[in-house]
C-alpha cells in the first residue's frame, strides 16, 4: 500500500485548476515544478489548510479527505507535519516553546526532544525568541517543531529556496541526517530539480496543476536529460 494517495480536482477563484493524481511511497518524495504549478496548493490540501471541491487524500490506511463520502479531517487530526515556506514560527513563544507546541498536544508518535535538539544543533537558542534567530536557525526550529509532533507524514515546502548557497548546503545536511534517523515519510516540494534529486527517492513533476511525469526509485533521471 502506498504511504500517500492523492487525487484532487479544484478550481480556484483565480481560474487556476489543480487536477493531480499521484501516489507516494515511504521515504522522501519530491514534488517539483515551476512557480504556479500547484505544488504548495497540493501540500495545503494534504495538510488540510485548503479545501478542494473534489478529491481523495489517503495516508496509509487512514482517509484524510474524501469529498464524495463527506470525509474531511481537520488539520489537527491528520498527523501531518508541515514546514512552511515562510516557516510560521510563533513570535510570542520561545524556540523551545515553538518546538514543544506539537509535542505537547497529540503526537502520533513520541520523538525524543533532546535527540532532535542534538541533531539540529539548537541547544544554544532554546530560550530565545524566534525573531532573534538567523535564517538557518529559524529553518531548523521550524523543522524540529514539525518533526517533534511525531507526524505520519512530513511536508516540506521549499525549505531551501530562500537560503544562500552555503546555508542551503548546511540545511541539506541537517535534513538528510534528520530524515535518515527518524524515518518519517516526507513530501518535499521545490522548484529546483537539483534539490529534489538530492533528497528524494521518488520525483513527481507538476505543471499547470497536472502531474506530467513520475519517477519512482532512486534512479531519478529526469531533469538530467
Amino acid at each position, binding site marked *: 500500500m502506498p504511504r500517500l494517495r492523492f487525487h484532487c480536482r479544484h478550481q480556484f477563484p483565480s481560474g487556476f485548476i489543480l487536477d493531480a493524481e499521484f501516489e507516494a511511497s515511504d521515504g522522501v518524495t519530491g514534488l517539483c515544478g515551476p512557480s504556479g504549478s500547484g505544488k504548495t496548493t497540493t501540500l495545503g490540501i494534504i495538510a488540510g489548510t485548503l479545501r478542494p471541491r473534489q478529491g481523495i487524500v489517503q495516508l496509509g490506511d487512514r482517509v484524510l479527505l474524501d469529498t464524495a463520502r463527506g470525509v474531511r479531517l481537520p488539520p489537527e487530526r491528520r498527523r501531518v*507535519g508541515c514546514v512552511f515556506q515562510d516557516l510560521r514560527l*510563533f513570535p510570542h513563544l520561545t524556540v523551545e516553546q515553538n518546538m514543544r*507546541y506539537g509535542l505537547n498536544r497529540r503526537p502520533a508518535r513520541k520523538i525524543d526532544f533532546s535527540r532532535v535538539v542534538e541533531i539540529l544543533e539548537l541547544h544554544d537558542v532554546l530560550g530565545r525568541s524566534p525573531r532573534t534567530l538567523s535564517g538557518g536557525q529559524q529553518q531548523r526550529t521550524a523543522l524540529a517543531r514539525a518533526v517533534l509532533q511525531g507526524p505520519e507524514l512530513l511536508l516540506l515546502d521549499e525549505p531551501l529556496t530562500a537560503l544562500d548557497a552555503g546555508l542551503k548546503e548546511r540545511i541539506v545536511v541537517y535534513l538528510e541526517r534528520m530524515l535518515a534517523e527518524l524515518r518519517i515519510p516526507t513530501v518535499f516540494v521545490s522548484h529546483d530539480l537539483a534539490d529534489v534529486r538530492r533528497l528524494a527517492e521518488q520525483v513527481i513533476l507538476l505543471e499547470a496543476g497536472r502531474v506530467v511525469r513520475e519517477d519512482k526509485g532512486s534512479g531519478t533521471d529526469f531533469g538530467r536529460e
Partner: protein
Amino acid sequence: MGFTVEQWQAIGLSLRVAIVAVLLSLPFGLALAWLLARRQFRGKAILETMINLPLVLPPVVTGYLLLVAFGRNGWIGQFLDRWFGLQIIFTWKAAALASAIVAFPLMVRSIRLALSSVDVHLEQSARTLGAGPFDTLWTITLPLARNGIIAGCVLAFARSIGEFGATIMISENTQGSRTIPLEIYNLLESPGGVQRAQGLVFASIAIAAVAMLIGEILERRGLQRSAAA
C-alpha cells in the same frame, strides 16, 4: 485640593462601575470582534451598524431604551426580577450596564483591529501541529492580539468613567451613589459648586488621560508586534 466623602465615594463608584462594565462586555466584545474579523456572513454590515450605534446615538436615547427594556415593566427587567430577583434600574448596576453599552463599540473596534492583524497562517500552522480551533484561539490568536485586547478594555474603561447621558436616566442619583460625572453635575446645580467640582474634574481628566495613554501605548506595541511577525 481635598476631596469630600461624597467625592471619594463618586471616584470609588466610578472606578467600580467602569471595571464591572469592562468585565461585563469583554466576553461579548471578544466574540463579536472575532466574528467580524474572521468571518464573512450575510448581515455582517447590519451587525456592525448595531454594534456601532451607541457611538452615534444621543446617550439619553440609549438611556431611554435601557429604561424601557430593563425597567419594572420592561421585558428584560421583568424577566430578571421574576427569575433572579434582580433589579437593575436605579441602582449602580444600571450605571455599569449603561457604561458597558456605550463603551462597547470602542472595545469591539480595538479588539477587531488586533485580531485582524494576527496572521491567519500562524493559526493554520498551529492547527497542523495538533491544536484544535479553541486551543489555537487560546494559545496563538489571543496572546498575539493581547495588547489590542487590553487597549480595547482600557478605552472602554475610560469611556465608562466619563459616561453621563445614559447613566443619569437609569442610575441611582442620591448622595453617595453618584458616579463622577453625576456628582459634578449635581455640584454645579448647587451654590459654589463650580469651585467644589474642580477636584473631581481634575480626577476625571487624570483617570481618562492615563487610561488613554496606556491604551495608545499598548495598541502601538500590538501593531509593531504583528508587523514584526
